[in-house]
């Protein structure tokens, strides 16, 4: 889905909202139901096994498989996928 500027975050603005820590107790990959790793650098929840990453936008994890990106390729240099 569309990320970005409509969330009131321009480029180089404040750090993205962190994930509510208690959520990590319950959240799993919707596809495999396996645990996820929170990657602070990109603000994503990573499923290492399947090689996919779910974005966290405005503090809300987007757990729709279609929205996830694959982690096999390197993320693009210019963030079209800015949190």
């Amino acid at each position, binding site marked *: *889905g569309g990320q970005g500027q409509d969330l009131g975050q321009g480029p180089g603005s404040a750090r993205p909202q962190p994930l*509510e820590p*208690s*959520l990590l*107790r*319950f*959240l*799993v*990959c*919707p*596809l495999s*139901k396996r*645990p996820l790793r929170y990657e602070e650098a990109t603000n994503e929840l990573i499923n290492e096994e399947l090689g996919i990453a*779910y974005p966290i936008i*405005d*503090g*809300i*994890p*987007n*757990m*729709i*498989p279609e*929205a996830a990106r694959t982690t096999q390729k390197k993320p693009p240099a210019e963030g079209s996928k800015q949190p």
Partner: protein
Amino acid sequence: ETHFGFQTVTEAERREKIYQVFESVAKKYDIMNDSMTLGIHRVWKDILMHKMNPSPGTLLLDVAGGTGDIAFRFINYVRSVRERQLQRKLKHHQNLSWQEISESYQEDKFKSLGDSQVVVCDINKEMLKVGKQKAQHLGYSEGLSWVLGNAEELPFDDDKFDVYTIAFGIRNVTRIDLALQEAYRVLKPGGRFLCLEFSHVSNPLLSRLYDLYSFQVIPVLGEVIAGDWKSYQYLVESIRRFPPQEELKAMIEDAGFLKVDYQNLNLGIVAIHSGFKL
């Protein structure tokens, strides 16, 4: 092949159309609920909460919870239960010093929610956005979190929640059987499933009046208030397409729930279905 209101569409089309409906109505969702139901939806949701009767420490998953109505009610409810618990405890401690009494009233001393938590899960970004803004506006933050997810494919681990609610949401799910299976999976053993949804009116006179109101008034309200006749036309049609009480009960039982029961509100305009994972 499946249905979107009275139209026949593919499953993919249906999901897309429903997403667009809620994207379109999100900002006016609460106002429309009040207008269409003359505020009675608030009573229905209150009744759901009273039926749930959550105690402090309860973990609730509210699916299709969009704008937060159930979540906020849950927080209010466990807060007041907790306050009453603490007041009763204080009354029984006759030899507390003033110091001790005032300390126990300090907010940071007692956890006002007593470890209760609600996770709101919705598939629609716009609805969640509205919900989160409302929460900020009304001062809800403790014990509340938001997740973008699909009821048919929940991003939660097995056996985690005490209660699962879906209020006026299951009607918009394309594969209700999958949603029910997922509900069963994520509930703890002993956990409760609660569904609040529009249902079927068997009384012929009320049914006629209800049809009249639904098809003549609601889409017009939709156009006047939200500038969106089509979405509210969909809403009215989707209610007619949704399985009636007994059929939904059977579907819930198929997912593995036991002691499945339902309670009609307003002669069946709305029903609360309940089941347990035992």
